[in-house]
């Protein structure tokens, strides 16, 4: 469907994108994930045509669109700010693209009402000014406006970032539902890993203008290809040399020369270790109460390690309590030390 081949984008002397290669399949929900300034929005803007690459090609359905004007690309876009025209009503906002295509009034009306119905906007809301709508409704208008012209692809640039936390979760679900209904190929940009993991079919993790990994949410989370990806996605513990030695003493095969990581939810406290698992003695130094779960900070002597336990009311540990942390060496992700790929947390 969409192929980015060896895309290089430069701003003056600064290279924003280095040889980006992506293949997005038809109907897929594909997310560009990464910290600020990593190149994800630049890649999106290269696809939509706002940025022209120095080299490389953008191919959509086997057609090279690298130098095709923005308006002729047939790619819809939902902006971070939604970019709704404040001087127009909701109806006029949605109809804007159709009017430019010089469609008949009746046809415009029919299309606008049809798409409004699909995104759950009432006739009454169509008459309103965009400033009279809530954040969620505004987002629906932005989606309707992007979809009404029948684009082959829809690009979304952090569309949930200016909403409050609760609405963000609610709209995230709606967004996924709508994408499934419309079946449209979607490219989604976000720096929020939770958003990326819950929404996407596949994720491309960006860092400093490079793609670190492309994979399904499970692949990037559980089988992070690089140290950067494993650090950027989710919370993680890096094991100290002493902890690695302790694990190996219990029968583990960890390479002390590599950087070894284990996710918080893969560790358990005060359970019976299975064969091959290491039991590490420690003291609870702090606990963070999240409601759904509790995060414990456990001092193992050589390092402090974080563990998450379900808040089931059974296993609650007090600060200062002596505990045993159970670690399965199979859950450890190990990387060659490079130093470059670590992310600042």
């Amino acid at each position, binding site marked *: 469907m969409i192929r980015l081949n060896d895309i290089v984008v430069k701003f003056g002397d600064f290279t924003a994108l280095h040889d980006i290669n992506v293949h997005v399949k038809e109907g897929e929900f594909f997310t560009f994930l990464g910290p600020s300034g990593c190149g994800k929005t630049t890649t999106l803007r290269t696809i*939509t045509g*706002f940025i022209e690459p120095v080299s490389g090609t953008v191919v959509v359905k086997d057609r090279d669109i690298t130098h095709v004007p*923005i*308006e*002729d690309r047939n*790619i*819809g*876009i939902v*902006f*971070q*700010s939604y*970019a709704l*025209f*404040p*001087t*127009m*009503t909701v109806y006029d906002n949605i109809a*804007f*693209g159709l009017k*430019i*295509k010089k469609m008949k009034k009746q046809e415009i009306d029919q299309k606008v009402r049809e798409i409004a119905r699909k995104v759950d906007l009432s006739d009454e809301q169509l*008459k*309103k*000014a*965009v*400033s*009279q709508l809530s954040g969620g409704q505004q987002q629906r208008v932005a989606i309707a*406006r992007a979809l009404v*012209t029948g684009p082959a692809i829809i690009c979304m640039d952090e569309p949930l970032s200016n909403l409050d936390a609760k609405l963000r979760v609610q709209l995230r679900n709606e967004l996924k539902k709508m994408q499934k209904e419309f079946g449209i190929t979607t490219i989604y940009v976000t720096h929020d890993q939770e958003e990326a993991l819950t929404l996407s079919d596949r994720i491309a993790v960006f860092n400093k203008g490079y793609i670190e990994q492309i994979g399904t949410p499970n692949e990037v989370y559980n089988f992070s290809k690089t140290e950067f990806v494993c650090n950027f996605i989710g919370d993680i513990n890096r094991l100290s040399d002493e902890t690695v030695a302790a694990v190996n003493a219990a029968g583990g095969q960890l390479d002390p020369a590599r950087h070894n990581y284990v996710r918080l939810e893969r560790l358990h406290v005060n359970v019976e270790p299975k064969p091959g698992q290491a039991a590490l003695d420690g003291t609870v130094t702090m606990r963070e109460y999240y409601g759904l779960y509790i995060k414990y900070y456990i001092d193992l002597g050589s390092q402090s390690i974080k563990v998450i336990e379900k808040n089931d009311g059974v296993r609650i540990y007090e600060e200062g309590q002596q505990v045993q942390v159970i670690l399965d060496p199979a859950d450890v992700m190990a990387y060659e030390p490079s130093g470059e790929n670590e992310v600042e947390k």
Partner: protein
Amino acid sequence: MNRTLDKKLHPEWLLRIFGIAFFAYLFFGFMLLPCLNTLASVFRAKNPDGTDAGPFAVIQFFLAGKMSKNIWNSLKLAVCLVITVNVVGVSIVLLTEYFDIKGAKILRMGYMTTMIYSGVALVTGYMFLYAGDGMLTAALKNAFPDFNGEWFSGFNAVLFTMTFACTSNHMLFLRNAIRGIDYNTVEAARNMGANPFKVLWKVVLPTLIPTLFSLTVMTFITGLCAMSAPTLLGYDSINPEIVRLAGSSSVDEAFPQARAALLSIILAMFTIVLLTVLSAYECKGHYLSVSKTKAKLQKQKITNPVANVLAHIYAYILFIIYMTPVVMIIVFSFQNYSAIRARRLDFSGWTLINFFGTQDYTYLNDRGREKTVVGAISGVFSNEKTLGGIKLSFLLSAAAAALACVIVVVACNYIFKKKNKKSGLILEYAMLFPWLLPTILICYSYRTYFNSNDIWYVGYQNLYYKENVRLLIIMAYTVTKLPFSLRMIKASFYSIDEELEDAARNLGSGGLRTFMRVKLPIILPSVLAVFALNFNALFTEYDMSYTFHKPEGTTYAMVIQGMLADATRGSNMNALGRRCASTVFIMVVSGLVLYLVYGVGSRDLGDRLEIRDRRRKRMEALRARFRKAEKTESA
């Protein structure tokens, strides 16, 4: 080769060439060349016998004569004004916004009256009260026979009038600054034991210093460049002298033109230095509130009862000073000519004749015969001369205000497109150039430079000749309004989300359509506001009108000034009443404009739709009530 040619013949490319040519024409033709000509005229001064005098002769004459007195007078006025205007300006803002004074809303209305009438209308209004034959002075003379009836003339009168006339900026900017203070900072200071006056002195005032500094510089420049008050009240400052010299000839005095040029250059130098100081200060940055959850300022009670009473007395004395001219002008605009001449209210003499209609004037002459002057009494809208002035001012101001807006919108669009490029910056500085020059320098330069048939780029037409002067006035109005318009409209361009343009392009919209359909509607309220404010300022504009004054260019301000002279003649009996009515008319127009700008203009589409919705519902309810009443009647 062909592709390049095609690209060059593209309409947008042609439009850009046309734009560059237009702005170059405007800048060089109507800003730089006329002013350079003024500068050069100092070096081209001629003796009465036609021989070259040279610049040193002009300077020598300048220093020896009373010219330096004009400069000292202007400086004296500017320095005194800075003190008095700041004292009154800060007082009125604190009294209405910071301290808890009873009746603050009414007080604020009174203090803001200078926003609806200024310049010649205000000065003539003050003269109506305080001049030798003025109402208040006459009353004071009656009460105290030793009272100096001529107190309201020269420096005293100018300082008094301008002190109260020039506080509009304080009411606009200082008020906003004080409202922007985070109240939590005041509470924090109180919490740490500071008393209210300590809080004012140590916490509130320091945050206002940047605004006060800007206001001080602007007031200083206003004092230096004062025109209407010194001219009408008789004070020898720079501007009236420049205009006098501009109209003088070398037969009457030595090098009048060169001296006028020298004076305007000196004035320009003062302005440039002051504005440079101001912008250097502004570059240092303001005290920005670091608070993310700003609390609204709450009025401070003056706990000391004596101080509280004194503050109230002070507030209401200021209110009386601000309101008396306004009330008197409004009241007397509805009085007949004999009541106005006697400056005494006649409760049986109410009339609309100062506004509408004409009357004959009958009197007994020296021989005891009755004589009638047909149409000697006429209203603002019936008097041919007044109506002519209103019409001319209306057209010239509207044309110039619109022209300035169009030029600036086009310029801003370009500036924002070329935000990080030199060409955008050059255009911006070119549009701000007139800000550096005093209005009088621009007008004087126009008057002298275009008063010839040799200027090729205006088609060898003398623009100061007969009706052409109107074109010259429009150009002067437009050029002097460019910097203000640019600052205001540029600010509104910042409010356009850059993603909107991208969104429009993504939906297939071209550059022109995006500008017309997306960007222009967003900035339109600001553009209309700038148009209205420009129009408001130009409609009763005095300084430029006075410089270009001639029969074909008699604007409204000059007509009002003319009424001062008319009032002393018997042939135009109600000139004084018409003057009052004119001021009332100006207040109504200005008030309406301000309402449209700040009331209606600030509503966005959502507000407008809501208002329309409410109106529709009200109408429906009304109709339903009628229908119900009809049904009950028929039953």
